[in-house]
């Protein structure tokens, strides 16, 4: 009989490709519950984007992100916390491909992907850090 609720907590340092460690954990949890590859793939995008955002905006004094997954067969909750100076999500422009093609800055897609791939997204940001909470339905 499998557990109905599995939790994983990791503190990730700011080193290249460290998000892949979290993805490995996510994939193993997903397969444990028999989650479809499509849903695991979408969750992979959410985890990747939330972590690289956290590491990019995290503070130099505490260059880590705290990552927590809670998974059931129906739902995944992803919490990613950084310790940077925070940001106002309402002031992040919504990227548009036509504008990006002619812009020197081709980046800035992370938040759009988080909103689009998730079923619920909450961003709590203050001058001492940011916590991103993501809910992804898996069934």
């Amino acid at each position: 009989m499998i557990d109905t609720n599995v939790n994983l907590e990791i503190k990730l340092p700011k080193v290249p490709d460290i998000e892949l460690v979290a993805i490995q954990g996510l994939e193993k949890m997903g397969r444990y519950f028999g989650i479809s590859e499509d849903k695991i793939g979408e969750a992979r995008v959410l985890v990747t984007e939330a972590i690289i955002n956290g590491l990019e905006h995290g503070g130099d004094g505490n260059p880590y992100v705290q990552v927590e997954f809670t998974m059931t067969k129906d739902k995944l909750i992803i919490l990613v916390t950084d310790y940077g100076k925070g940001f106002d999500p309402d002031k992040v422009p919504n990227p548009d491909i036509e504008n990006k093609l002619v812009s020197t800055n081709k980046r800035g897609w992370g938040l759009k992907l988080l909103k689009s791939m998730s079923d619920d997204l909450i961003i709590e940001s203050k001058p001492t850090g940011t916590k991103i909470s993501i809910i992804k339905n898996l069934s």
Partner: protein
Amino acid sequence: MSTDFNIISEIHNNTLVMRTEGYINNVAGEKISEEFTKNFVSGINKVVMDLGKSKVVNSIGISYLIDIIEKLNEHNSKLIFTNLDPTIEKTFNIMGIFQFAQKADSVEAALK
């Protein structure tokens, strides 16, 4: 999961085919960009990018692909992605990539 990234390029008539393997992040994006610049020579009017062996991409890596699309648009050339993982295809759809690039099931189909 390996973090190694590789890219192989070949030219078929007027088409540049680039095949990636591994995680497409900022470092891989730079490698793709360098490989494209090196091989996008006069006469090339189509670029096929086969991502069949890249199952994970991040938005920073994709920003380098958008830069390639911009350069191809300037030369009236086109980019065709092949063998896309369903999640990557969904990601590209969300970003609107297919307004300015195409997709095909295989390199062979893209070369036709």
